């Protein structure tokens, strides 16, 4: 329990330091924003007023403090420099789509990856080994953007079965979901397989077999419990980075998620939006990391004795 609490605090601290780091990196050169926000005919006084309202004359640390204060107290991430809309609204509407997409592709990848991994670890033909290892390596190497283009070409352009871009209804999630899920599932399959192979060959399984346990019991008690933790944490981490926005895939499909929001904001030099999206992703990622560690402790009691 104490360990979990400490882990929670360190996660919280990490979010703060990471957000400061992001703030520092993105800290724009003051002149730019003033120039960008007002017309060229603006007087010195007007420029000064805008700079003052944005707090640009303060030191970085002070500005960071003000920013965090408004985020924590009011949930206010500032306003977009381009559309003048509140960053919190933009992020909220984008996050919905990204969360659904991430859940969908993680679900697909887990299902496919674990099935393939377990199957290939159990089958012992001469050709299974090279086919599975080379095949999964192949899928890991597939660039998602190439795959996405192929899917668009085949399903949307040539056959008109599915729409190309947008995010209006559930059909729009299918192609991005699949393009993200396939390379992901190959990674899951590889890890599951190598893990299972190692465990199946370990002495405690041989002992369990030789003392006559049923194979159901062996799987349930000895194999799954040992094989699960690394696979779960790998899936969780990838899920976390999907939630941070999948920049390339979302951009290709014109998917209105967090990734595309971030990329577009970068092109527009709209740093409040970038900062908000980054902060949001960091919070989500750390939360997932925290729950993964807790889950790890629950799944594998040995972990709690070791240093976390």
């Amino acid at each position: 329990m104490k360990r979990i609490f400490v882990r929670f605090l360190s996660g919280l601290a990490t979010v703060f330091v990471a957000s400061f780091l992001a703030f520092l990196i993105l800290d724009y050169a003051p002149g730019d924003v003033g120039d960008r926000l007002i017309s060229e005919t603006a007087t010195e006084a007007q420029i000064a007023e805008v700079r003052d309202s944005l707090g640009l004359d303060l030191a970085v640390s002070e500005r960071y403090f003000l920013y965090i204060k408004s985020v924590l107290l009011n949930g206010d991430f500032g306003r977009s420099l381009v559309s003048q809309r509140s960053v919190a609204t933009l992020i909220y509407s984008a996050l919905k789509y990204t969360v659904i997409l991430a859940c969908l592709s993680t679900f697909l990848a887990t299902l496919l990856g674990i099935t393939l991994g377990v199957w290939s670890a159990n089958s012992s033909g001469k050709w299974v080994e090279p086919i599975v290892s080379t095949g999964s390596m192949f899928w890991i190497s597939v660039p998602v953007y190439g795959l996405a283009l192929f899917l668009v070409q085949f399903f949307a352009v040539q056959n008109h079965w599915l729409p190309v871009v947008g995010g209006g209804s559930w059909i729009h999630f299918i192609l991005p979901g699949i393009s993200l899920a396939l390379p992901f599932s190959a990674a899951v399959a590889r890890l599951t397989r190598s893990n299972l192979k190692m465990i199946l060959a370990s002495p405690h399984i041989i002992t369990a077999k030789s003392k006559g346990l049923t194979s159901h019991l062996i799987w349930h008690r000895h194999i799954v419990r040992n094989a699960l933790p690394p696979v779960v944490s790998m899936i969780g981490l990838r899920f976390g980075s999907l939630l941070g926005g999948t920049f390339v895939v979302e951009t290709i499909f014109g998917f209105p998620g967090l990734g595309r929001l971030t990329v577009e904001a970068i092109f527009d030099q709209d740093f409040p939006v970038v900062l908000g999206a980054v902060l949001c992703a960091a919070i989500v990622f750390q939360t997932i990391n925290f729950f993964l560690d807790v889950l790890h402790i629950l799944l594998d009691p040995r972990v709690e004795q070791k240093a976390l």
Partner: protein
Amino acid sequence: MINIRNLVRINQQAQSNKKTDNGNKKLQIPPQLLVGGLLVLTILSMVLWSEHWSHFPYDQLRVGPRLSPPSKIHWFGTDGFGRDVWSRLVIGSRYTLGMAFTASLISMLPGTFLGLIAGYRGGWLDRILSRFIDLLLSLPGLLLAIILIARLGPSMLTTAIALGVTGIPAFYRVIRTETITLSMAPFVEASTLAGARTFRILFRHICPHLYPDLIVLGSLRIGTFMLAGSGLSFIGLGAQSPTPEWGVLLSEGKQFMNTAWWLWVFPAAAIMLAVFSFNLFGDGLRDWVDERSR
């Protein structure tokens, strides 16, 4: 008599064959590593001698008709400006690979150096460095790279640097753990007793043991960085348009998706094949190194 002699000889031969078989097994290179290595060598030769691989100047307009499909003269067809796609791909390997190599070096050098120091010294230095490295991991996936690119502006060098920074933790962690194990080895103790300086112990005695790990990690990283780097270029956050980087070629080809399949299929295939080669090589090498150290 002859029969028995023959039998004995056959037996001896069989035994000696067995012996060499066993002896060979340790040195035998697994097919995965062999194929991966050959592919990597081919790609490297393409990078180093691009001019000999390509048939036309990559940036010359109208070397052929516009948008002509693959033919004997233009193996991979021509693009909207009548440039030869094969030549552009070959020259493009320099940019894609170069970006990935630079990024790998940028994550390898600091990661290894810090990992060596933290692993060897331990104590507060180790704790501080490890916390700092954890910080780099606090942002998921490419996000750290993305904000660095946002700040520095998209270009090939920026993307390489940004990707490189995200790769530092992987090297740091592996090298740190290995160094902790190695620093307890008798030969380190012996050279400490012989009065060797820390610097000498780290770089003369510990570092050589880390080379296999570094090569494995490095080649796997190059694969990852190629994917990420071309992906970023593809969406416009990396190399920019006239450069024939593979991601850029792919995004240029996207405009002709319905009319000219060769403009996007070949760049995509090139990226995939190159990443596949480095992954195959790295993975095979890792298995081989593990096997040998056992």
